[in-house]
């Protein structure tokens, strides 16, 4: 830790860890319900566990984004945060919002609008928290006078996320129109501005880990951002196909979402070539695993598996089946969960006691168990989904009859999800294993890393 105020990040990460663990509890519960019968049918039905599962995901990933930003901005701008007090108030407000939302969901207090289930008071708090966050970060950068491209991309991503949440606050008379604008938030988050956030973190990590030339990396970061938006903005149309829109959205959605993987290929090549060309200049090889892993798993989950069912003539058959769950799990994990875990892994040795820079054996076990588990989960959803498409959509077998015939894939889902959960459990344990330490260590001489050679 080079700046005292970076300690803020630790508490954001700690909250993110707890919520991540909780997310898996509700995920496993939901998976068990696919196997059924469900002893909790009248206490905690599927719709409740599923809402909590997806909402906790959004909340913990955003918590991680905010923590990672509070870690990164002092490093990039070479200054203390504008206000640590504001950052803590923000975290407190955020946690209260998250916890009350989850408790509310248990009693079906929510809007019942997919992924935007947060009740209006909670939505308003979310906007307030995002504004506090932006204000704090912008003031920090302004005061320092040093504003890097990496920061700029990250900041625009965060600001974009706040702006794109606004359509979710409005009421629409027409259900079709309300779906259109729901995707302005959800799609343009995950296939637009959040990719800027991921790109920003990726650039930061690569600059730190590889010691590659900042000018070169930031140039390519711009190219990636351009590619993300060329494809991502008009690619929103792949959510429009069957909800009651004019026909032209079909070819537009097909063409531009087929281009979406280009940016992800770019991102993976970017990460690989940075390390390839400049070598490793930092002892934290575990963080490197997470960084490269994130770029590659994004290419697999978001790029390849997204492409697999995005074309209208394919999507016509696969839409609304477990094929979507296959893509959703792999994409979200690779792009957003893994980049947050990369930032945490990178920052952790300098904010806790007794930790080697290289990462612990537990850390590596966690990495590979999570990867294997998520890969297995993706395959389980894929095989279940493909079976469902053929039986239900093509052959015309009833929904319930089909679900009975694909039970074996749900068994596989639970087995691999257990593996994944063990991996995450190890990560969380590794995080809390040692006490936090908030002392300033001069760059270039961390006591735990004598092999350190990079000078930035």
């Amino acid at each position: 830790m080079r700046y005292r105020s970076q300690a803020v990040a630790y508490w954001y990460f700690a909250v993110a860890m707890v919520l991540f663990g909780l997310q898996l509890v509700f995920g496993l519960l939901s998976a068990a319900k696919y196997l059924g019968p469900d002893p909790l049918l009248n206490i905690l039905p599927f719709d409740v566990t599923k809402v909590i599962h997806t909402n906790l995901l959004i909340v913990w990933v955003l918590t991680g984004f905010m923590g990672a930003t509070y870690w990164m901005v002092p490093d990039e701008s070479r200054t203390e945060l504008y206000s640590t007090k504001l950052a803590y108030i923000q975290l407190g407000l955020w946690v209260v919002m998250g916890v009350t939302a989850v408790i509310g969901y248990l009693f079906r207090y929510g809007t019942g609008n997919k992924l935007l289930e947060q009740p209006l008071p909670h939505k308003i708090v979310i906007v307030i928290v995002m504004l506090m966050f932006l204000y704090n970060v912008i003031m920090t950068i302004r005061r320092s006078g040093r504003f890097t491209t990496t920061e700029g991309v990250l900041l625009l991503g965060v600001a974009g996320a706040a702006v794109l949440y606004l359509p979710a606050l409005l009421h629409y008379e027409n259900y079709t129109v309300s779906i259109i604008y729901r995707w302005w938030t959800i799609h343009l988050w995950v296939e637009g501005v959040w990719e800027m956030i991921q790109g920003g973190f990726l650039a930061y990590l690569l600059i730190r880990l590889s010691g590659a030339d900042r000018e070169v990396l930031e140039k390519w970061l711009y190219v990636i951002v351009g590619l993300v938006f060329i494809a991502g903005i008009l690619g929103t149309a792949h959510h429009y196909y069957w909800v009651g829109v004019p026909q032209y959205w079909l070819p537009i959605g097909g063409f531009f979402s087929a281009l979406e993987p280009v940016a992800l290929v770019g991102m993976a090549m970017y990460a690989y070539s940075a390390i390839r060309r400049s070598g490793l200049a930092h002892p934290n090889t575990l963080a490197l695993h997470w960084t490269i892993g994130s770029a590659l798993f994004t290419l697999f989950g978001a790029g390849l598996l997204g492409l697999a069912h995005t074309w209208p003539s394919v999507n016509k058959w696969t839409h609304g089946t477990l094929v979507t769950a296959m893509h959703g799990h792999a994409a979200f994990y690779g792009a957003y969960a893994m980049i947050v875990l990369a930032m945490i892994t990178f920052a952790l040795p300098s904010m806790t006691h007794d930790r080697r820079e290289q990462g612990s054996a537990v850390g590596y076990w966690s990495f590979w168990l999570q990867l294997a588990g998520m890969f297995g989960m993706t395959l389980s959803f894929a095989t279940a989904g493909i079976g469902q498409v053929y039986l239900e959509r093509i052959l015309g077998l009833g929904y319930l009859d089909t679900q009975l015939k694909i039970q074996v894939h749900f068994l596989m889902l639970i087995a691999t999800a257990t593996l994944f959960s063990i991996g995450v459990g190890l990560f969380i344990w590794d995080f809390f294993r040692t006490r936090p330490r908030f002392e300033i260590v001069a760059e270039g001489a961390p006591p735990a890393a004598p092999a350190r050679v990079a000078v930035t």
Partner: protein
Amino acid sequence: MNKRQARLFAIASTGLATVAFLGLTLHSHTKFDELTNAQNNTPQVQSGRDVWHKYNCVNCHTLFGEGAYYAPDLTKITQLRGEQYLKAYMRDPSAFYDEQRHRRLMPKQNLSEREITDLIAFLDWVSKVDNQGWPPRPILVTGASIPGTDFGPAQGTSSGTASTLPPGARPVTGTENPIALGAAAFRSVAPACNACHSTAPGVNMAGPSLAGVAARAEELIGSPEYKGQAKDVKSYLIESIRTPSAYVVPGTMYSADGTSFMPNTYEHDLSAEQIDQLAEYLSTLK
């Protein structure tokens, strides 16, 4: 390419994509009223939409294929199931499906009668939205578009008995709603109705599809082609089961010399009560 050019590329491409996207969105707004029959988006439909949200339906079901994948898609449900069926179902889902057999069940939602009616109005509005013809084939809740696909091994080997139901059919005790009992009988009488008849629109096999049979019957009874005795939909259906040749559906694959190919054994083999329940069920196929 230098860094400045790269930045220009990022800004220009984002700008162009945004302008195109906003332009198309604006244009779409001029089409939504027509595509979604906005004139039919009445206060009742809106209040049905609120019911849909209030009970968090979208986190198990899908609508337009959007939502969760734990329960069937409901985009076209009002075109597959009549209002009476949907009302009876929403009052008590367990009368129609069995958790032990299907391994999942919709919990009873305790909807008021008003909420049920509004929700059906909303779902009916949804089913008429011009959504590029999705789904390309009907998505059934249970059963099969192609008759027999859902049969269990026991049914494949014999002509079937009243006690052998396909794996996906709810076992009945005899005290359920008559529509539910009729739905079970449809798959379990011997020979099973669904061995020849599909309930999916357009799937004509050994017998014609029974999707929309109630609406067709109503039209038929009033027309001069019809020479039978029935005065209403239910009595027409009962007549068709008892004496299949009273009216034959046109087509050389269904009849010859005015005699239907459908077995005429049901009159003896089924009880009056069973036939009544079958007619109850069939008259919900709007």
